[in-house]
């Protein structure tokens, strides 16, 4: 006898409105309005951390001073992605291939992960490459991490 399997298809679609919190709000507003990156410095270990948050990740004490960071940095790692991951902002699959990278902005301890605007060719991208943040035009920025379009290589000296 053939056994019939019963599956109930369901999309669990739960809407959220996530509060950025005061530290991330300031980071996102500076990026949107002034095109600037800010990290926050631990008064004990001196690490300048991104994203800014209430306590130091290592010392667990309240973070202190806000530090403006350069929009330029160094590529610490990358991946050319062939997997059509769902873009959470649209629900649609990403066009492949695209490149994700880990960037250490000059003056920061932490790195930021974002898209890297390079030809998806393993010969054209390398760890240690210098990159610069490319932001959306001021009028198109909405105050979230997509105000950064991507990081682009700086002509190598």
């Amino acid at each position, binding site marked *: 006898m053939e*056994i019939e*399997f019963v*599956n109930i298809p*369901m999309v*669990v679609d739960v809407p*959220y409105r*996530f509060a*950025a*919190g005061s530290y*991330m709000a300031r980071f*996102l507003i500076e990026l949107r309005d002034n095109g600037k990156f800010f990290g926050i410095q631990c008064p004990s270990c001196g690490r300048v*951390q*991104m*994203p800014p948050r209430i306590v130091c*990740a*290592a010392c667990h004490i309240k973070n202190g001073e806000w530090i403006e960071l350069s929009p330029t940095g160094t590529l*610490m*790692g*990358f*991946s*050319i*992605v*062939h*997997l059509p*991951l*769902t*873009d*959470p*902002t649209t629900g649609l699959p*990403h066009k492949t291939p695209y490149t*994700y*990278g*880990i960037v250490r902005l000059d003056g920061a*301890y*932490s*790195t*930021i*992960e*974002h*898209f890297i605007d390079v030809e998806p060719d*393993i010969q054209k991208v390398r*760890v240690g490459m210098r990159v610069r943040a490319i932001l959306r035009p001021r009028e198109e920025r909405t105050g*979230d*991490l*997509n105000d950064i379009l991507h990081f682009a290589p700086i002509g190598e000296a």
Partner: protein
Amino acid sequence: MTDRVAIVGVAQTRFSPKRADVNVGELAYEAIEQVLQQTGLEIGRDIDNSISCSHDIWDGQTISDIGITDVIGGHLRNEEKMAMDGSTAAYYATIGILSGEFDCTLLLAHTKMSQTDRNIVNNTAFDPIYTRMLGFDFTTAAALQARRYMSVYGITEEQVARVVLKNLSNARLNPVMHNGRDLSLDEILAAPLIADPLRALDLAPDSDGAVALIMASEERAKQITDHPAWILGIGSCYDAHYLGDRDLADCMALEKAAAMAYRMAGINDPRRQVDLVELGDEFSYQELLWLEGLGLCKRGEAGCITAEGLTARSGELPVNPSGGLLGGVPANVAGLNRVAEAANQVMGRAGEVQIKDVEIAVAQGHSGFCGQHQCVIVLGREPRSLSASAGRSR
């Protein structure tokens, strides 16, 4: 009060890409029924604590243990759920028994990856305000870690492919695995790129399944079996959540968890003292990185010792003789299955995948992207008092 704890029973369902015939409760009970039969125990009479491991978003239900509280004996009794890798269930079960509160604990981990989409589920592990909206998931985060680790330590793609070759070949011997096969290095290196440098065979495949264990105090353990796997040491440690706070070539959380577990177990030269390792190769390169974090070789050496065959079934230090996660083990079940396979080896119950004379085995599990949380369990054939050695380091 007891200060020795043992694993006295181990059962696994068959892992499969899709089990459309069972819901999670039925899947869980396949493992629970087996482990009760094996040990001759009854839930109502013998089990005084239950710990389950599953994940709300994977199961599509908040409080994902709802579907299994009846089969695990949680009705009108205590049941603790952990939304972490299953290895941590063994950690908490040990602590519960050492406290003197419980004598006999039933552990269960279940996940049906086939019921949803791993990339969307794992995207929700990222901070909603920060990098989640960029679409990251565990595979792309792992690709960044692989690139970083390989670039810092000069690990080659061929060395990583040897992990796939070994583990899929080992999995062929293991009747519970579904991804076992014999491949050539060329075939592995020619698999389609998913997220460079990771190719299709570098990822643990989607799997459905469950694992159940019973852990007991010394007195109860000796009544249940003549061949328990004794807990010699446990360690657990978190790294930073944000990828940007870590150098992904490092695995400091694992180094610390291993140090805690080794100290309890009286292990000061793991390479010499450990006979076998079952670790969380969710992605192939992680086997190399975790071997280094477990102190079983120097940083950057894991690729070489793997290429030399040291970690093969016939090698000096077999690693994942069961086939590992690449052989096909569900998320969340992953680490509890590492403990299960290591315990079977120590108990001499590993059947087709048994390695001779395993006195001491190490199981490692991790949760979160790029191994944020790490748990290490050391198992052995001879019991060891845990309270005497469990003092904090000075």
